[in-house]
């Protein structure tokens, strides 16, 4: 080869590299996750019907919960399971599983010993303390009768209860709706369906030139219900008297409870599939008012209803008010509603860069979390299509199994960094529920993702640490504020959220590069505050209102 031709080849290669660099995403990130599920011993495959999913029920998947059921200081894992079908036969009634954390993120299956292996067609799990005795209880929603599990010293007892829906209940949340100090329960309903209809279902909806499952249009919605607690774990239906009715019989999925208008009362937000979302403002005295359509948080910026699935709630812009992020169907964006105060919200998805990265995937569980401890909140989004037939459609950008996403918040914009966020983000499943928490108590936040017809993904956080951290374990607190170097971080209690799942109830703070000590302020439901001055970062501290 002549010198000139060799020179031309090198020049061409150089140009190729330069142009590739200009085209390919160059996002780098400190965030790094590895899939530690098998290593941790989380091997349960969760089933959701048949492989071709001819009925809508087979598309919804389920969730998981991170909770410290044995009060030993580390997070255990509850996994919800559906049923496996073959044709018109039920071939495996699944069974939920409880994994005990034996320290450092290793788990052992304690389902049988603790008595929580419900074999209903499970959809979701909520964690709450129904008797105020200090240990976490469970509410499992099913396609069929829901189950309330009371925790008795680390063993569970399924209790007879009026709480729940006998149908396809899709999510639930414990929260103090009437301000009497105990945890009430809200349960979302999706559609009316019978097992016979599920077993006999056939694909029949034309979608991108292929036949897929029908719905949700054409199905009757199943009403959401609200149950008040008498303080001893006995629940009564108070849906109508509280104003928490479901006037549209909308197709409800995710639900989150938190104080959105800073009035000290816990409000409720419900993500509805293909209908406007509900926002119930807590008026006090056990009464709510549905304000979704005037609040700006029910529709997207065009005024259109989307297919709401999951919800993340946190103060992403550090203005003191919790914002709402809602995941939606494929070929549509997820929506970030910025809280303007006094129950007014603004769709800022485009302004913060969320339109492009969230348009193609079909998104479900989602959480705000500071994964790299740099002091601001990032987003995690679990994805997966509902139609297995998507794999055979050539013009579809997505498939049944999809990659999950990490969106890092940098300079006011959420930036897609999934491809650079480690092998854990390369896992492709059809994911649904997500729970976040510090599983190994090392100060950073790990993730558990429930998948369709596969084992859950456990993402261990191995990010480069860009700052200090602090965890405040205060189960009864409404909010915690941490101040350092003149900056204050606020975390407000959020119950429920994500999709069909329940996350670590401790307050986690990434603090960035701070110097010196922190001042911690714990805010209790009655407005009282506990000051904890000069706390050294990098530790888990506990706070109890009645043990100062």
């Amino acid at each position, binding site marked *: 080869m002549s010198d000139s031709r060799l020179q031309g080849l090198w020049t061409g290669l150089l140009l190729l590299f330069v142009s590739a660099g200009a085209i390919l995403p160059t996002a780098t990130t400190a965030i790094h996750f590895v899939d530690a599920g098998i290593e941790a011993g989380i091997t349960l495959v969760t089933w959701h019907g048949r492989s071709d999913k001819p009925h809508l029920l087979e598309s919804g998947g389920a969730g998981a919960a991170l909770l410290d059921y044995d009060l030993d200081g580390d997070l255990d894992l509850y996994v919800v399971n559906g049923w496996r079908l073959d044709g018109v036969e039920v071939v495996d009634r699944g069974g939920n599983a409880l994994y005990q954390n034996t320290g450092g993120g290793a788990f052992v299956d304690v389902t049988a010993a603790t008595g929580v292996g419900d074999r209903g067609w499970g959809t979701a799990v909520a964690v709450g303390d129904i008797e105020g005795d200090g240990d976490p209880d469970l509410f499992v929603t099913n396609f069929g009768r829901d189950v309330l599990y009371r925790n008795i010293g680390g063993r569970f007892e399924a209790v007879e209860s009026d709480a729940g829906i006998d149908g396809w209940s899709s999510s639930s949340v414990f929260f103090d709706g009437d301000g009497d100090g105990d945890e009430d329960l809200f349960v979302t309903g999706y559609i009316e369906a019978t097992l016979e209809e599920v077993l006999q279902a056939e694909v029949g909806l034309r979608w991108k030139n292929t036949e897929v499952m029908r719905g949700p*249009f*054409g199905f*009757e*919605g199943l009403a959401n219900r609200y149950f008040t607690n008498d303080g001893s774990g006995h629940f009564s239906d108070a849906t109508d008297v509280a104003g928490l009715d*479901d*006037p*549209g*019989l*909308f197709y409800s999925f995710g639900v989150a409870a938190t104080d959105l208008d800073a009035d000290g009362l816990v409000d409720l937000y419900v993500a509805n599939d293909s*209908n*406007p979302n*509900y926002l119930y403002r807590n008026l006090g005295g056990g009464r709510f008012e*549905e*304000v*979704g*359509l*005037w609040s*700006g948080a*029910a*529709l997207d910026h*065009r*005024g*259109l209803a989307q297919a709401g699935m999951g919800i993340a709630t946190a103060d992403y812009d550090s203005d003191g008010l919790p914002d709402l992020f809602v995941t939606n169907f494929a070929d549509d964006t997820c929506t970030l509603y910025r809280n*303007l105060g*006094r129950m*007014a919200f*603004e769709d800022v998805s485009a302004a913060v860069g969320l339109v492009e990265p969230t348009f193609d995937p079909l998104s479900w569980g989602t959480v705000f979390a500071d994964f790299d401890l740099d002091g601001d909140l990032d987003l995690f989004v679990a994805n997966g299509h509902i139609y297995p037939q998507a794999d055979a459609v050539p013009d579809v950008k997505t498939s049944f199994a999809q990659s999950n996403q990490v969106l890092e918040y940098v300079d006011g914009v959420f930036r897609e960094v999934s491809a650079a966020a480690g092998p854990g983000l390369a896992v492709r499943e059809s994911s649904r529920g997500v729970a976040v928490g510090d599983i190994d108590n090392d100060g950073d936040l790990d993730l558990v993702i429930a998948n369709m017809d596969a084992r859950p993904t456990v993402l261990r956080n191995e990010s480069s640490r860009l700052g200090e951290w602090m965890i405040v374990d205060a189960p009864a607190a409404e909010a915690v504020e941490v101040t350092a170097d003149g900056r204050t971080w606020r975390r407000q209690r959020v119950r429920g959220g994500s999709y069909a799942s329940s996350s670590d109830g401790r307050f986690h703070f990434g603090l960035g590069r701070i110097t010196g000590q922190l001042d911690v302020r714990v805010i209790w439901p009655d407005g009282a505050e506990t000051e904890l001055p000069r706390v050294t970062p990098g530790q888990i501290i506990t706070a109890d209102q009645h043990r100062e």
Partner: protein
Amino acid sequence: MRKLSVAALALAVLCMPAWAFAQESPAAMVGTYDALADAILALKQAESDFVRSLLVHHFDAAHMHHEQGRPEEAARDMALFANEGDNAVAGVRKRLLDGGHHHNAAGEAAGIYEPGYVIVTRAAKESMLAAAAAMRQAGNEEAAQAAWHDFMEAASSLLHPEE
């Protein structure tokens, strides 16, 4: 006895002259259907009138709040006008759609109306929601007036279509 009656009826039909089965729909049934059509069309008009009265309610409330210098409250009713009511009304709309009733079927197919909407077009809704958002964030009288002006521009033609 019943078998005998059926046989007698069959015999009578067979013996009927051809003119007794003239190939046209019975006039009495056509008349009834015509009257039913009046009722159906009147019902559709009644639906329009009813939804318009709902809009008038939200318009009047928004106007009052705006006049009294309460932009947040005005914004809420402007948004409810744009959405043809709150989520309870949306629930009624969903029930009608589930039952196969589309008030503006052709307009929906053409992308002019959202499913089930009776008066408010997509374009009007978007501009009125933008006006409501501007009203909510109006920091002064001038900004509130501008937001109200934008809202009025879309709303008045919906309230008074004949003008």
